């Protein structure tokens, strides 16, 4: 039973490797990758249900009990993210079926998407910080390939930067791990939390935690986001959407885990620092989004803004803030995927990336245009769409934590986000159409299916927030009371 926790990571790896042998059978590759992700979705949904009723599930690899072995832990927070990630991957895959092209499909596109997902799910589920490093690397190696795949000049340039920055960040991750291991003599996250609580979080341990903060900030695009806009705009649309939806979220997840579970005791320093970085990220991201002239720049800076916004929830250090962060993570994974898919399709339809050079798309593609409108409203946080509740709860958390500056910044950023996206809507979707009926390129049916389903999900999460709330509350409760997590993991330790 408890072995189920490992399936979201191991199944994509195995089917991904199988697909390497099936290189020439594109149809079969599509079916297998889709079935794999559906299976992962089913497993994570079931686990989420089990965790609600029986508490946190875990599996100690080869039966080595903590703190000696590696383990996977499924708590509500991790499982919600695994579930959302697999849903988004399914829809991005559906979009990719229609658009990615045979050249990519024959160059192991699907195996690498599956490896990427394996790394992401592994990062969410692992309970061992060194294993977290390994899962990060699995994810990053797959993402290196997916960025460079296609071999265009600009892809090569951006992927080189991306690889270098991530290699440096991973090296820092290792150094931080060495410091941590030297200080507390364990790598099991729950055990680290216990030891840190026992000795009190002295300045030495806080310094180590700031090292981790920098590492994860680079990966999440928190303040150190200089690599993000370039590298997220070069791969094919389906890959862009996957990256925008998931990669920064893994960094955010790691930050939240680190500073709620392992180093929650010196909030005056760590949470203040996170809050400051989040505020700066929002300001800089807004400047980028306002200055952007092409759809890709605007979209990538919107990713940056949302990273800052989610981490306000962490910086507030309150249960409401955590709940808001969880809601907003779910929303942001879905909404950013849809935003990138739609804007990528706009580029495909018009052949233009500069906002001013497009016009009147909504006349040719009405449903498509209104879906963009829904995405925009949801990212800006209009009720009853998915972004609303997350924003309210993060706001509530900021008030409770008395972070009024962050509160103001966060809500001011919503207006900037709305403005930057509305500019695309007014210029590119409204106005006189530049495409005549004969030149109209049809949107592939599968692509449209994936837009509509993401749109339905965004509306559904907003309207059905009530149904989600037991899960989110449970996740936030575990984050606010790390003892629940620690007790579950170390239950059978002497």
């Amino acid at each position, binding site marked *: 039973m408890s072995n189920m926790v*490992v399936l979201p990571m*191991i199944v994509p790896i195995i089917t991904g*490797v199988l697909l*390497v042998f099936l290189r020439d059978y594109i149809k079969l590759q599509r079916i297998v990758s889709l079935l794999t992700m559906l299976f992962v979705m089913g497993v994570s949904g079931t686990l989420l249900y089990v965790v609600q009723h029986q508490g946190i599930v875990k599996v*100690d690899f*080869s039966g080595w009990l903590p703190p000696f072995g590696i383990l996977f832990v499924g708590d509500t927070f991790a499982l919600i993210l695994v579930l959302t990630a697999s849903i988004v991957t399914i829809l991005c895959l559906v979009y990719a079926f229609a658009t990615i092209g045979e050249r990519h499909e024959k160059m192991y596109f699907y195996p690498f998407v599956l490896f990427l997902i394996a790394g992401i799910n592994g990062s969410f589920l692992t309970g061992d910080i060194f294993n977290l490093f390994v899962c990060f690397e699995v994810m990053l190696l797959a993402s290196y390939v997916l960025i460079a795949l296609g071999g265009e000049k600009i892809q090569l340039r951006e992927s080189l930067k991306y690889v270098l920055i991530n290699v440096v960040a991973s090296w820092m991750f290792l150094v931080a791990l060495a410091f941590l291991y030297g200080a507390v003599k364990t790598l099991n996250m729950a055990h680290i939390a216990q030891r840190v609580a026992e000795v009190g979080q002295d300045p030495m341990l806080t310094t180590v935690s700031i090292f981790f903060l920098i590492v994860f900030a680079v990966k999440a695009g928190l303040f150190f986001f200089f690599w993000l806009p370039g590298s997220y705009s070069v791969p094919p649309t389906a890959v862009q959407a996957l990256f925008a939806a998931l990669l920064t979220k893994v960094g955010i997840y790691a930050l939240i885990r680190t500073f709620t579970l392992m180093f929650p005791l010196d909030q005056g320093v760590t949470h203040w620092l996170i809050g400051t970085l989040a505020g700066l990220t929002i300001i800089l991201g807004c400047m980028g989004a306002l200055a952007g002239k092409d759809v890709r720049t605007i979209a990538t800076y919107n990713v940056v803004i949302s990273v800052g916004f989610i981490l306000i929830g962490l910086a507030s250090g309150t249960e409401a803030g955590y709940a808001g962060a969880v809601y907003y993570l779910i929303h942001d994974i879905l909404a950013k995927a849809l935003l990138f898919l739609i804007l990528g399709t706009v580029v495909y339809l018009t052949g233009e990336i500069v906002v001013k050079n497009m016009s009147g798309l909504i006349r040719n593609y009405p449903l498509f245009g209104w879906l963009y409108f829904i995405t925009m409203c949801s990212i800006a946080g209009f009720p009853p769409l998915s972004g609303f509740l997350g924003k309210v709860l993060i706001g509530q958390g900021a008030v409770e934590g008395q972070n009024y500056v962050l509160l103001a910044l966060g809500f001011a950023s919503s207006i900037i986000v709305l403005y930057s996206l509305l500019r695309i809507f007014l210029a590119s979707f409204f106005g006189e159409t530049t495409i005549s009926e004969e030149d109209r390129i049809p949107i592939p049916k599968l692509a449209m299916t994936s837009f509509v389903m993401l749109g339905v999900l965004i509306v559904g999460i907003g309207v059905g927030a009530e149904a989600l709330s037991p899960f989110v509350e449970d996740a936030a409760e575990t984050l606010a009371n790390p003892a629940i997590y620690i007790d579950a993991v170390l239950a059978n330790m002497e």
Partner: protein
Amino acid sequence: MKINDVILRTVVKGIVFIVFTLGIYLFFAGHNAPGGGFIGGLVLGSGVILLYITFDIETVHRGMPFDFKLVAALGVLLATGTAIGSIVFNVPFLTQADNYFHLPLLGETHLTTVTIFEAGVALTVVGTLVTIILSISEDE
């Protein structure tokens, strides 16, 4: 211009067997002593690369008609396969089993499933190593 490499070819023909034997020895030694799938795989892989350097790619490929990308994939499949086996037997993931068997000729033998896992690791290392070197040498 053809380089005179008679000495290299003659020596390599002998050396390669020593390298392969050492690789296999290290692979089996790994269970209780330094060695194992990774190191054994590295030594085996370097033996293959030595062949590629001495004789040209086409010649070696005639003798070993493998796509080394697939060798690496097969290795991962083997390693993850034994890991999945633990799920079938409903014991914690990655659990390995071992037992003593009385085999003809070999006598009392210690057989473990971890050897299969390690074989997967070794194949992955060989496959990846050779693929990297071949890709570098392929530049036009």
